[in-house]
């Protein structure tokens, strides 16, 4: 049993995710109350170089061919071995396509508690999780003996998790990784035939509030008057109303336009992850309690179906 905080580094195709650095920054904060070290856990193949700018006290590195890229089965086996051996106070994983694939399994396998959607830690070491689409925060004492924590971005700056000084790296022998039932076949590159929304100076972005496919025309008209592109949140893409190439958020693109005009977007954490760094966010939403107003610079609760035709008209005239 130690007071160390483990951070499981997420990487795909040789790139460490921003979430990994956010977690390192969170781990540093948490370690102030637990008194332990921040230990980065890096699983990979010939991936030592990925550790060089991690702001950690040390790195535990496991090298194995099947760990070259993430698969849930292999990662879970490797992490279970490390957690059992070192018994850290907490293991931080991404609340992501990587961390969430393994946190639950590790919890049941090792009999350890999980804390989901954690955003920050308080000065006295409590976790603060963001739930219900960002409308509710839930706080509690970090459960023991080892808390498996999946972290959402937004609570810490990635920059705080980076360092110019490479941390000391310890090679850990890989466990037996055979009989695995999950294998990576290949990656499929994102579609680049459509407009690249991450390069637009302004975006008119539609969310669930747009109600149906026909109404997207209202956003198209405004965007064409403004000379910019239309993007969308997850529910709109899942309904097949907009192509995946226009998706903003956790599983889509990260955008930082000068103006992000959010139409009927509630501002769920998964969406904010992809647009929270926009220069000016303007939110149009009839729900005055929508979390989008917490990050927007300007907002209105005027009904967008009344507003859009008028606004499009005025934009055309203003040109």
């Amino acid at each position, binding site marked *: 049993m130690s007071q160390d905080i483990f951070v499981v580094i997420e990487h*795909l195709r040789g790139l460490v995710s921003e979430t990994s650095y956010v977690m390192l920054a969170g781990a540093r904060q948490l370690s102030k109350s637990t008194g332990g070290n921040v230990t980065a856990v890096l699983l990979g193949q010939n991936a030592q170089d990925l550790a060089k700018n991690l702001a950690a006290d040390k790195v535990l590195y496991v090298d194995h061919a099947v760990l070259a890229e993430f698969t849930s089965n292999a990662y879970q086996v490797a992490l279970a071995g490390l957690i059992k051996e070192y018994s850290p106070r907490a293991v931080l994983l991404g609340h*992501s*396509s990587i961390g*969430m*694939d393994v*946190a*639950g*399994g590790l*919890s*049941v*396998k090792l009999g350890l*508690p*999980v*804390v*989901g*959607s954690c955003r920050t830690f308080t000065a006295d070491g409590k976790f603060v*999780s963001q*739930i*219900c*689409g960002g*409308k*509710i*925060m*839930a706080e*509690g*004492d970090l*459960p023991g003996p080892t808390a498996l924590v999946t972290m959402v971005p937004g609570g810490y700056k990635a920059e705080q998790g980076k360092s110019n000084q490479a941390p000391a790296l310890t090679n850990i022998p890989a466990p037996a990784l055979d009989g695995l039932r*999950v*294998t*990576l*076949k290949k*990656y*499929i590159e*994102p579609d680049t035939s459509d407009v690249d929304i991450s390069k637009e100076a302004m975006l008119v972005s539609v969310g669930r509030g747009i109600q149906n496919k026909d109404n997207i025309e209202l956003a198209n008209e405004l965007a064409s008057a*403004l000379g*910019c592109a239309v993007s969308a949140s*997850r*529910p709109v*893409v*899942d309904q097949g109303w907009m192509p995946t190439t226009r998706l903003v958020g956790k599983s*889509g693109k990260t955008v930082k336009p*000068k*103006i992000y005009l959010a139409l009927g977007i509630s501002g769920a954490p998964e969406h904010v*992850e992809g647009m929270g760094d926009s*220069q000016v966010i*303007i939110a149009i939403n009839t729900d005055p309690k929508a*979390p989008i*107003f*917490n990050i927007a*610079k*300007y*907002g*209105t609760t*005027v009904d967008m179906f009344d507003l859009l035709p*008028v*606004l499009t008209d*005025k*934009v055309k005239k*203003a*040109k």
Partner: protein
Amino acid sequence: MKIAVPVKFVPDLVEELTIDPSGAALDATWLRLIINEFDDHAVEQAILLKERGGGQVTVMTIQSEGADDFLFAAAAKGADQLIKLTGDFNNANNHALARIYADLLKESKPDLIITGVQAHNDLDGSLGPLLAEYLGLPYVGYIAGLTVTGDKVVARKEYSGGLVAEVEVTLPAVFGIQASEQPPRYIAYSKIRQVMGTAKIEEKPIASLDLSGGTPISRMFQPEVSERATMLEGGTEEVADKLVAIFKELGTL
């Protein structure tokens, strides 16, 4: 091929959420529950697999407001078996739910278990990976499409930035669905009413709920906001004028 879809209901975020007097939970009095939208996609994905390759689809839920309607709608879409667990589910966490579903699934032994990748109120991990481990099965989440060939599945797993991985998994296995290959189909209420006459919901009482493994919460609160948006006052015309002025000021018009 046997496909099982365990689902859960969650608070409707369109309604106002309030904290109960304990200060550590949502006030259940005014809470309206709806199906977890990722679970709705899981049902659709299961039906798509059945339509493509045959099989039997079982949809299972715990008792909840709206559970019967949801199950009958699933039957109208093509689900073959409907199961509703009954009993006291107060304060149920995902570890508890996963154990209950695991007990059921240990007996029926499906080839594929498909569930939503997450729910907005998951605090102790999402249901899929917990369930997988209780059953000793592999789990892969963030899935937006499944192709079954014999005892192998190729799953399309989503990463950030639009990157997709094709992952091969040996069945039986559990999958967490981010989005079905097609949007969940719309079923007219007349068709659901028709199904109500013929489809049967199997009710299975649970003995007691083991809540161990949950994550204790000491306080719930609405997020504190450092700086809220400046609200543009006025009617439609006035707000539109103000927006045009902002667009001009920022140089996008």
